């Protein structure tokens, strides 16, 4: 949390536009105060269902783009997955909802112009675009690898072709670009581009595989996880992952405040969904009768 550059704001957001983009929805909100605080990799937490909603967890989304217009706009990209996102998808321009953000630890940025590979799968790939914009400003080379189950689920190919030095696309059914998974292309792109840094955003399977490849090439790898979050602000402790700290100790780290961006090689991908026995504070004994 101390890594978060500036305190977030909580403001009423007004829907400016909402449209379909492939299998997803892209929504732009006027939410003053967020744009100037935002750094790539951060997210916003939206309250869904209106003021007296019976849905009490926040829905968190990576930010696709911020603009200074109307006091500050924020664009997000989301998939309809349940009643909360259904409610969001039914919003219309001028509708109002509560927005908190920007939240979370952003992508660390290289100090020098370096060659970067940006890997995105599904709608979370949206988080790569503000990152790409900043990397370009710093004269970094930007090579995209974008994937999804099928063509409708690949986000951002057009934008990637516009801002990237190269764009490789992959779908599981082969309906767009190569057939396969993003990680199948990463090694080749890393070699071709002589990459020095890897960034990735998407489901954990992809992040795990991409982190492995980066480690194999001895490259720094920063991943933004899409672990489901319930509050987005660090109070509920629902979004924890086992992450190794600077001293080599594994902590159950909250994705919303210690993340969502982690160093890929520090996340214990094989132990997700568990409390590793050597984690800080893990039950010390498994003898019968001991309580944890």
């Amino acid at each position, binding site marked *: *949390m101390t890594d*978060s550059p500036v*305190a*977030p704001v*909580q403001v009423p957001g007004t829907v400016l536009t909402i449209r379909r983009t492939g299998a997803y929805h892209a929504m732009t909100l006027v939410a003053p105060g967020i744009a100037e605080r935002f750094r790539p990799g951060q997210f916003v937490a939206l*309250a869904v269902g209106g003021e007296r*909603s*019976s*849905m*009490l*967890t*926040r829905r968190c989304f990576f930010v696709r783009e911020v603009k200074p217009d109307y006091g500050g706009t924020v664009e997000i990209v989301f998939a309809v997955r349940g009643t909360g996102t259904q409610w969001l998808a039914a919003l219309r321009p001028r509708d109002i909802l*509560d927005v*908190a953000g920007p939240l979370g630890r952003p992508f660390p940025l290289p100090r020098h112009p370096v060659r970067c590979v940006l890997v995105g799968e599904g709608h979370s790939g949206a988080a790569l675009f503000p990152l790409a914009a900043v990397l370009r400003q710093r004269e970094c080379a930007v090579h995209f690898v974008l994937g999804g189950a099928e063509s409708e689920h690949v986000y951002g190919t057009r934008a990637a072709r516009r801002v990237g030095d190269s764009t490789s696309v992959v779908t599981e059914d082969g309906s767009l670009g190569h057939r396969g998974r993003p990680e199948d292309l990463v090694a080749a792109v890393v070699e071709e581009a002589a990459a020095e840094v890897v960034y990735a955003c998407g489901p954990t399977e992809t992040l795990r595989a991409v982190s492995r490849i980066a480690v194999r090439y001895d490259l720094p790898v920063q991943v933004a996880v899409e672990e*489901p979050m*319930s*509050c987005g*602000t*660090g*109070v*509920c*402790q*629902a*979004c*924890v992952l086992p992450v190794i700290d600077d001293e080599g100790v594994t*902590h*159950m780290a909250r994705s919303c*405040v210690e993340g969502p961006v982690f160093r890929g090689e520090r996340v214990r991908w094989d132990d997700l*969904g*568990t*409390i590793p026995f050597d*984690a*800080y*504070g*893990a*039950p*010390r004994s498994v003898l019968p*009768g001991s*309580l*944890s």
Partner: protein
Amino acid sequence: MTNLETRLGGLTLPNPVLTAAGCGGTGRELGRFFDVGRLGALVTPSLTPQPRAGRPGPRLAETPSGVLNAAGLQGPGIETFLSRDLPWLAERDARVIVSIAGGSVREYTEVARLLGDAPGVAAVEINLSCPDVENRGSTFAAHPSAAARLVRAVRASAPRRIPVLAKLSADVTDIVGVAMACADAGADGLSMINTLHGMAIDTTTLRPALAGVTGELSGPAIRPVAVRCVYQVHAALPEVPIVGIGGIRTGLDALEFVLAGASAVAVGTATLHDPSACARVLRELEGALKERGIDRLADVVGLAHKPAGSLHRRIDPNVGLTVAGDTAGAGGAEPIEQETSQ
């Protein structure tokens, strides 16, 4: 100006709105949204002698007007809290109520004793909803005798100047009996209620929604249960201060608990939904009191127990028709007060 001051045993708080244990972080999280020094008090997550990694995920599921959680009291342990978090809170002049937990009476007293030298601890809250190893894993909150044993031990270990609050569970047949046992054992106040046991099954995966299978239900879904508990316990023990907890989301919800007999209230799950919930509930409560021509919170603690009309002011029948929390509504309260305060 409405007088919102309230007392919990020997502790005087400038206002009655607290964070509920485990729902307000350790201050830094919410401090990004409002000044935690403005809270009546910040109640910490339950702290144990040793760090705890908590339970595997999924830890939390959304249910109608509630959440079900099984986080397993993840926390850094009392010593890290005292060295890292308490000074941060003290710098902001936050009043801090330390919630404590353990697996045995000894673990609780260990934590309580460590608080002795810590400056800035306003009170201790005992989370009685932990399994007791000496009682086949049944929780302390489930039995008057086990609850009393724990309260007595903590009261003896905690510094005398600090009030000790016992936090009760409503998952019992006779909460009044447990409350009486705690009060007799030396509790200076009661916090109620903790979460209720619950369960949800994911109809997509066809499996329990939480890794822990069962979980703990909180949020507006449990509010009527909590209000009932506060009402019954206040009726039995009118002199024991109560912190009302369970589903509070608005100032009117807070007022409901005060009328039932709570001297203070704590906001839990609503903070997950709205990080500014505590600050807003306080503002709304103040507005609601003003609107009803009530100028001292203490005057209406437990008012629902008295026959209708016992408040010296006549309540304007139109009160409550304006939307609670609408501060403009509070502004419109002046004429009502003049009209009714004869």
